[in-house]
């Protein structure tokens, strides 16, 4: 009997250590990625990286200024196209979402969230690039917006539902109309949470590559307008990483460092933003 208890204790201990091992194994890649990106990327980050265009193939030097600006343009467009509809659709789900239409919308948003980003690129290619006849920042921004839309919608809905019912009733009881209540009281209260969700969605699309390959494409020069092929950091990293040139690899790491720092900052600040409230 005693031996039995000892064996059971040992098994318990062993399972605990296996779980510790699993956790260690899961976290190691994160630190390895962060280490490599920092160690190799810092060497490539200099003034030229932020201010110059890529050097011609084979020449050393140059920068990624156009890709940095391009990425910001693409994400900016995605926010403009994706966030307002996402928030409004989220409001609909929270306020009127118990209808059959609400259920269908929620279902569609979930389905949309699971669609591989590359197929979103194929879709936008067919409806924008083929129609206009050329790649453009607009097409890239639209594909990123489509990827953001379901996340923004569902986060907005969830956070609006968390607002205490008493607030809504107090406003309605004072004779405030429903739409004013929703906008001035509910959305206002839920704002930090919604902002968090939006920031996480931005962080995600900032690193998206696959849908940009055949929507915004790439460009080794400045795009004259949003209606032209546009460079972006993720696509640049991809092109440079699979190239045979040493100097391009260096620049790929620098671009990756920039991307990772930005994504981590968004994630950490999103986290700090919600903490004091909940």
């Amino acid at each position, binding site marked *: 009997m005693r031996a039995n208890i000892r064996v059971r204790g040992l098994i318990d201990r062993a399972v605990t250590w296996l*779980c510790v091992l699993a956790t260690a194994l899961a976290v190691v*890649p994160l630190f390895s*990625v962060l280490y490599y990106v920092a160690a190799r990327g810092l060497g490539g980050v200099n003034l030229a990286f932020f201010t110059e265009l890529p050097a011609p193939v084979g020449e050393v030097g140059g920068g990624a200024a156009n890709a940095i600006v391009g990425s910001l343009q693409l994400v900016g467009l995605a926010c403009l196209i994706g966030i307002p509809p996402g928030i409004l659709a989220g409001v609909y789900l929270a306020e009127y979402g118990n209808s059959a239409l609400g259920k269908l919308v929620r279902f569609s948003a979930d389905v949309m969230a699971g669609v591989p980003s590359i197929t979103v690129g194929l879709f936008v290619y*067919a409806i924008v690039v083929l129609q206009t006849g050329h790649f453009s920042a607009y097409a890239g921004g639209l594909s990123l917006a489509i990827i953001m839309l379901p996340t923004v919608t569902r986060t907005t809905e969830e956070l609006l539902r968390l607002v205490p019912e008493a607030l809504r009733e107090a406003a*309605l009881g004072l004779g405030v109309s429903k739409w004013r209540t929703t906008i001035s009281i509910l959305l206002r209260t839920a704002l930090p949470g919604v902002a968090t969700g939006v920031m996480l969605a931005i962080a995600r699309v900032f690193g998206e590559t696959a849908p940009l*390959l055949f929507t915004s494409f790439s460009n080794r020069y400045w795009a004259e307008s949003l209606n032209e092929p546009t460079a972006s950091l993720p696509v640049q*990293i991809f092109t440079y*990483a*699979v190239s045979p040139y040493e100097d391009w690899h260096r620049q790929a790491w620098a671009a*990756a460092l920039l991307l990772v720092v930005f994504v981590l900052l968004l994630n950490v600040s999103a986290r700090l933003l919600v903490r004091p409230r909940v």
Partner: protein
Amino acid sequence: MNTLSTQLRPSSGSPLSVGRSASQVNWGDRVFKVTTAGFAVLIIVTITAMALQMLVSSKLSLREFGWGFLTSTDWNPVLGSFGALPFIYGTVVSSLVALALAVPISIGVAMYLSEMAPPALRGPLAFSVELLAAVPSVVYGLWGIFALAPVMRDHVEPALRTLFGFLPFFQGPNQGFGLLTGSVVLAIMITPTITSVTREVFKAIPRTYREAALALGATRWESIRTGVLPVARPGLVGAAILGLGRALGETMAVTMLIGNRPEISASLFAPSYTMASVIANEFTEATEDLYLAALAEIGLLLFGVTILLNLIARFLVWRVASAGGRA
């Protein structure tokens, strides 16, 4: 949530809507509802349009090859013959191997984080695992080329060959770029997804289940094994399927590591090609209509399969969550 508030809605004409006559319609509310509904419908329209557009884009290929598209291994753009089997094989095998690696690890992490870890460690560890999901795919690809692939080539693959070299999966030349490396990076990328869903599932199971076992003298592991895991099982399957859905559609990191050769080989060391990768690599180069349609059909397949998997997974997770809520 909508019992009192609907009664209080001013336009409903209830006695509580002071200052408004019963017949007065609040146009602001009407407009607000219609506007938000419009944007909500936009989501349905988008996803439907996507499905239809993919069908239209791949029409040429669907008509030309029919079901044979799925079983032909011949991918020759120059001769205009297209078969998707090598890509289906590469996608399925890399995703399944990734799943086999990621599921045990994720369940271990989730068990540690929600049942065992000291409270002070839980937050930072959970955040680290979440950050794994935040690292962009293309950065994993870059890291994979310069950090993971050399380690796989020089250490992991030779070790596997010495230990299991009698199996066909671990034979042939190993260059570090191939199915196995692609699977490893996929496993890293889907671990956070599976972990977070598994933790949610564990959280949905009432404390009393564990306490009942502990009160009977069970060790902590025994309480998890008898009180948590049996109830959680459908949810765990759901978590794994969600991970599989992500792995199937994952593009960049795999494209950069799997070797990109449309061949079917038993060896996991051999280069392969996935559905998402072939679209990423060849779509902008494809000039002929049939070529574009064939790539679009691969996209359509990917679209259909991931949606189906997501639906199954959501149903399974939802079942555990609602069962846990009832108890």
